[in-house]
């Protein structure tokens, strides 16, 4: 299986994923990032803490960023609509 690095962009700096993970393909890497974003939102809701995170940067085996997943991508659509006042 290919190795993907899931770095984290917290708005000011990059938190490095030094080890990488073996994941089936890019779709699986995206799903991993989305799952993490959901967990982080859930924790933020429960603790009332702000999330200082912006996005996940998905890098390939050569550590070249090939995709990104925004924290906001993990929010339920109904919540996004409500926040936008739609």
């Amino acid at each position, binding site marked *: 299986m290919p190795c993907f690095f899931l770095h*984290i962009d917290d708005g000011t700096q990059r*938190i490095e994923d030094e*080890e990488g993970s073996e994941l089936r393909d890019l779709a699986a890497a995206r799903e991993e990032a989305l799952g993490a974003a959901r967990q982080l939102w859930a924790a933020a809701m429960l603790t009332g803490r702000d999330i200082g995170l912006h996005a996940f940067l998905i890098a390939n085996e050569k550590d070249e960023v090939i995709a990104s997943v925004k924290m906001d991508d993990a929010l339920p659509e109904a919540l996004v609509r409500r926040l936008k006042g739609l």
Partner: protein
Amino acid sequence: MGFNNRLLRALSTADQDVLRAHLRWSELERGTVLVSPDEPISHVWFPESGLSSIIAMSGSDQGIEVGLAGRDGLVGMPLVLDADRTPHRIFMQIGGAGYSIDADNFRQVLDDHASIRKMLLRYVQAYSTQATYTALSNAIHTVEERLARWLLMSHDRQDDDEISLTHDFLALMLGVRRPSVTIALHSLEGLGFIKATRGLIIVRKRNELEEFAGAGYGVPEAEYERLIGQLR
């Protein structure tokens, strides 16, 4: 021959000799599966070093750690409780070595030696307490707090400050996605409690880590020491 395994150490010399006659030295490499779900347990292991992880399975390839055992205890607990198998999977998450005893011999020793059986039952009670606090921690603590707890429990079961573990394993231990581990390690590192490098976590400020872990850490450890003896 002295034992490093705290549970074996807690036995009387006479009881240690009874067991010693059946024990065989085994290298326990990282990833070694000691117990497979729903299959008869062939041996009981008393780790001298390394760490085993007890995993509750969700489907065939997913699961979450529900307990850990290293030099504090034994692997193959169902045999102490007159059960021959478990739905759990148990494997070495940190490589080490230890002693094993064949399941039939183990049963015979328990039948013949009440003092050994009682000590091992006390370990089962201590382990159960650990598992209940894992449940507590999973329900009410943040990933950072749970990671702190896990690192302390791992640190308790080894001599040095370097914990050799990949983020993939930590994600399994904590039941979270990989990036959540990266972030939690980054937070604890930012507080100066640990230093995390590739495949290695170094415990720098143990007391602060204990304070940070809160209610998840301490009670099971005190219970172990009350029931059996020195843990660290």
